[in-house]
């Protein structure tokens, strides 16, 4: 199971990096969100995948699941959600103002 998840993390990371290298802004943003997803999956995998009861409820189970990674992932998801939406707005605004979403054309010093 760990191996499978590790492969999934690797694939997501590779796809994310590939898309960030694209010229279209929208692809870059999608790439970034894939990248964050892969990291969340990594967080889940690194803490060990084991079956068990919810932590501390009742206190009678033989083994418990570690709750911390899930809390971390939840926090990180919220943050990346906020940042991605801000980035989308920025990309839209840039497209409106500069008339292009091609990162190659954005680079030039237009007003000089």
């Amino acid at each position, binding site marked *: 199971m760990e191996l499978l998840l590790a492969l999934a993390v690797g694939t997501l990371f590779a796809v994310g990096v590939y898309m960030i290298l694209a010229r279209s802004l929208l692809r870059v943003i999608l790439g970034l969100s894939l990248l964050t997803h892969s990291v969340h999956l990594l967080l889940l995998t690194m803490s060990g995948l084991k079956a068990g009861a919810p932590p501390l409820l009742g206190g009678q189970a033989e083994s418990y699941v570690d709750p911390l990674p899930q809390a971390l992932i939840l926090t990180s998801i919220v943050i990346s959600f906020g*940042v991605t939406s801000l980035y989308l707005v920025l990309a839209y605004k840039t497209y409106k103002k500069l008339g292009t979403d091609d990162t190659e054309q954005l680079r030039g010093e237009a007003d000089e």
Partner: protein
Amino acid sequence: MNNIVVLPLLIPLCTAVLLLFFRSSIKLQRMVSVIGQSSSAAACAVLLWQTGTGGVQTLAMGGWKAPYGIMFTADFIAALLVTASTIVAGFCLLYSFGSVGAERETFYFYPFFQFLMAGVNGSFLTGDLFNLFVCFEVMLISSYSLLLLGGTREQLRAGLGYMLINIMSSTLFVAAVAYLYGVTGTLNMAHLSERIAAAGQDGILSVIAMLFLIVFSLKAGLFLFFWLPGSYAAPPPAVTALFAALLTKVGLYALIRTFTLLFPGDPELTHSWIGWMAGATMLLGAAGALSSKDVMRILNFNIVISVGFAAFGLAVANEASLQGLVFYMVQDMAAKALLFLLGGLMIREAGTQRLDRMGGLYASRPGLAWMFLIAALSAAGIPPLSGFAGKLLLVQGGLQSGAYVLTAVALASSLIVLYTLVRLFMKVFWGTASERPTACSLNESSSPGSSRWAGITAGVLCFLVVLLGVGSEWLAQASSAAVLTLLDPTVYIDAVLKE
């Protein structure tokens, strides 16, 4: 347990939320901001005094003891940096009153400012690695907003790159945290330090340490600074001054914490990498500063050089160099903020930021000229001023450890700082202006009254910089007290875990 530890985070946060309700009234917003900023500064001062007399102060959130809960930990270096950053940011706040323009002020400039302060102070004070990530994000998201506020073409273009780089490095940060949690099973910094030391810093932990080095170097602009000069040139000078004074320092502080507390075990690998990166940063920053022909870009490359200089102290990591590092960081906050505030005034006065079109400003603004000269000499490290003592200690530390090449590079870079800033001074203030463009190219409002206000703010900050230089004895003592927890992690660990 000490509740004051969390106040430098809590006060800006509450102020920011309160400010959201007064969008329409600029006057009220300014007043609330100033009250919030000064009460935050007062809390920092109390915290500094308490850590000075009573050692490391801790606060376990919600009463959950370490290592299970989230800890806030203020040792002397954290308290010192929090105090310095709050005071320096206060000057940037005062400066922004007359310079950012009514449009930005009505569109939540002040709330973002306070959120940024909450993130910065939280990053300095937190004792939990994941909480550090969260505070970083609070700081970065506010910095995105401050950078973009106004929405000029240049800001949008700079914002795209700045956000992309920072989101990438935050992603790597989470990955590094995941690996570290997988290996050690904890995220409390004191607990991590203990466990890493017990396990011995072997292969996998060294790899994780290098990952953290990449992450924090991106944030601090250490070697991976390619994003910095372009994006810091876009926002108005009040915002750039704030970024220059605080953001890279937070990255540097994270580096210091990581490599003195968590991963001090393998200096052959990590610290020699930091040394190489510091040297390259100084050289490349110097090359950039020499080749730029734009006021803001020259000053931006000076940030890069000073980051390299500070990292040189971390690479050597003996008592003198760490003391110099703390001293240098504290005084550099004030000096960099001053440089950028004065740079903003110069650009406003000349109506352009192209160096070849400026000149002869001394005739109209002699006070500005003198203040800039003081700031420039202080940044270069000329004796009576505050830059000198920090650089002296850093160089002493470098020579003690036999890092001769790095010390030579550092001294050469100081010379180049002096050259670029004095060249800037001569071009801007001496000679005659060839043509004076009437349209103000800078994206800030200007009126005679606001200009005078900004000048007074810069003047008081300039006085503070001089004071730091004259009173460097006190700051040197403070930084030697701050070094104690850096040299001996057990002080920090005991304070957190043995309570």
